[in-house]
């Protein structure tokens, strides 16, 4: 199998690492070779963060390079725009319809770009979701990251049952129920 390239981008603290852990779990279970690359340390403090996931028969480098991502999962709109050029021509961009102003915007030295989704849709396959709203409906805003994963899962090669199983093995026991609900909310959207 040709190596599949997935990227997860967002703002430090949004919970991208949980998503990559679930992804790592499901890929390993399916018996593929896999490499994931994450950002720890200073960048996690509200900075722009990116996680790379690659799987296939044999994976060498742990990072996804420009123009190579099959699926780009963006937890925030500006980050979607920042990393959009990593997508393949026919790659899918999953965007959480949320704005988090970077400090450059808060202090007034930059403007948060307008019409990000519209611009991105011009030449890419884009799936947008308001994951925070979905999570609110479920009564727990913290699980919005799993809602996004549910949406993204539709562009990947695993079954709903496989995902639910790995989620139950990855998240803390107390939160399995809510996280599985969040996943389904995204998956069946």
């Amino acid at each position, binding site marked *: 199998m040709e190596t599949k390239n997935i990227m997860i981008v967002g703002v*430090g603290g949004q919970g991208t690492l949980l998503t990559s852990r679930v992804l790592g779990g499901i890929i390993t279970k399916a018996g593929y070779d896999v490499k994931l690359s994450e950002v720890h340390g200073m960048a996690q403090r*509200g900075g722009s963060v990116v996680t790379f996931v690659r799987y296939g028969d044999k994976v060498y480098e742990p990072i996804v390079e*420009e123009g190579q991502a099959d699926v780009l999962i963006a937890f925030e709109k500006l980050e979607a725009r920042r990393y959009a050029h990593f997508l393949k021509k026919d790659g899918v961009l999953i965007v959480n319809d949320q704005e988090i102003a970077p400090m450059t915007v808060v202090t007034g030295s930059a403007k948060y770009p307008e019409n990000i989704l519209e611009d991105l849709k011009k030449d890419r396959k884009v799936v947008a979701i308001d994951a925070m709203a979905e999570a609110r409906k479920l009564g727990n805003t913290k699980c919005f990251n799993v809602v996004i994963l549910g949406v993204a899962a539709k562009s990947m090669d695993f079954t709903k049952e496989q995902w639910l199983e790995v989620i139950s093995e990855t998240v803390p026991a107390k939160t399995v129920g809510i996280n599985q609900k969040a996943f389904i909310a995204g998956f069946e959207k």
Partner: protein
Amino acid sequence: MGKTKIMLGNEAIARGAYEAGVKVSAAYPGTPSTEVSETIAKYDEVYAEWSPNEKVAAEVAIGASLSGVRAMVSMKHVGLNVASDPLYTCSYIGVNGGLVVIVADDPGIYSSQNEQDTRMIARAAMLPVLEPSDSEEARVFTKRAFELSEEYDTPVILRTTTRLSHSQGVVNLCDRENIPDKPYERNMQKNVMMPANAKSRHIFVEQRLKRMAEDASSFDINKTEYNDTSVGVITSGIAYQYVKEVMPSASVLKLGCVHPLPKKLICEFAEKVDKLYIIEELEPVIEEQVKSWGIEASGKDIFTVQGEYSANMIREKLLKEPVLYTADKDAPARPPILCPGCPHRSVYSVLKKLKIHAAGDIGCYTLGAVAPLNVVDTTVCMGASISTLHGMEKAKGKDYIKNWVATIGDSTFLHTGVNSLMNMVYNKATGTVIILDNSTTGMTGHQEHAATGRTLKNEETYAINLYELCKAMGIEHVYEADAFDIDELEKIIKRETQRDAVSVIITKAPCALLKTFVPKGKCHTIPDKCVKCGQCLVPGCPAITRNEDNTVTIDDTMCNGCGLCMKRCKFGAIGFVPNEK
């Protein structure tokens, strides 16, 4: 056997050490090395500790090795500078039980103050260096490092990089080896490094390295992969993966032992290939040695010494393939920032108001240097805030630093700041030191330290009292204050910066990311009362954004209820809803 697990490079290093029978592990946290210790601490068979700094940690591991057990110490690249004093000399002493030094470099400077290359220090200290290229190799090479350490009577450095340390890959799990302790025998000539003994040990070290260099050509961790011989690449570590990605048909000499170099193997390889490239991140350490043997090769003439490498970079520079993509240059940057509810922001907001400069230090609070706070003027290395302030005072006089303070975190203070404070007292300095006590080592992901009351193994222990420690040094003016009590803080800082004596202000409030942190409530706006003055925005909390009409919105999913914005609002336009108990 047969069990596999997906692991970070750092977790795999810890697994390798565990399988190698390591009994003692010591470290000070530092990105990207921290998870090595956090992982090894989970094995009951291994004693693991956070030491106050890397020098202490190295000496703990040296002592354990001398006593006859396998021991390791781990650190980030700049931690090696702190630990280099014991390590340079331990190179002379050698080992009893195997001794492995894990050092994590940070090409690309993701979370560091410089981009130094550990191999340069290893060459100066005459210590061997192994370099794995994925998680499985991290496990295997760590075990190999213990074996080589005992075989050659030398500490061995296992070098990793951020990308390797923080990438996960599939790892094969093996059982822990049963390594019996070696007997301890007094050996004054070997273990007491005074001039007469050190002279003969220096000769031993030179011979040891020479012997290892000869043997290295047959080390199983140095591998040649012959394919098309028109192009040959010598590489190591993570760079190997980029080479394999881009040039699957090239011949490759993959070095697992990057110091000393296997000269015979390299010469043979160079002989067989038409065009030789050397691809190594950071300094041209392999390249310069290979070229000094009269071998022609291409390396830093086309590749950079800065930052991380990538497959695309090799495509562009070596294969001359244009990489067609357009990055969005107009997307506003998103640099890291202090979190909502961070106590550092509160202290810095007071310093900003008083127009005070801060000699800064290493930690999250370094972020006080950037807009909108702009308070921190200098950052050098761990502990330097206090001593650089002292240097300024000695150079320019006590009045010159009346609008200066030193700011340092609790963990960093105990790392090396305490020495600098001792120096201020001893050398009759004046000046104000603010210890930003958030009860943890924050930036690296919340590790315990000597003043938190818990060990790396999560056992309860005595918590060193920072106030009493400063008092015991003879400092009369030591004050503790709530980091969020900005009126009280302002009063103390104004008073103490004018004092002709050493003052220490310990500002206290826990890091908002600690698992034990429970927000007291949430702030919200009362739009009718807002006069659009923007005072709440001054400290730069990411949970508050300005609306188009210049009123503000507080994001209730981000707010940690510190109340700083509310205290700054003179118009009662920010309310607070306490959390239900």
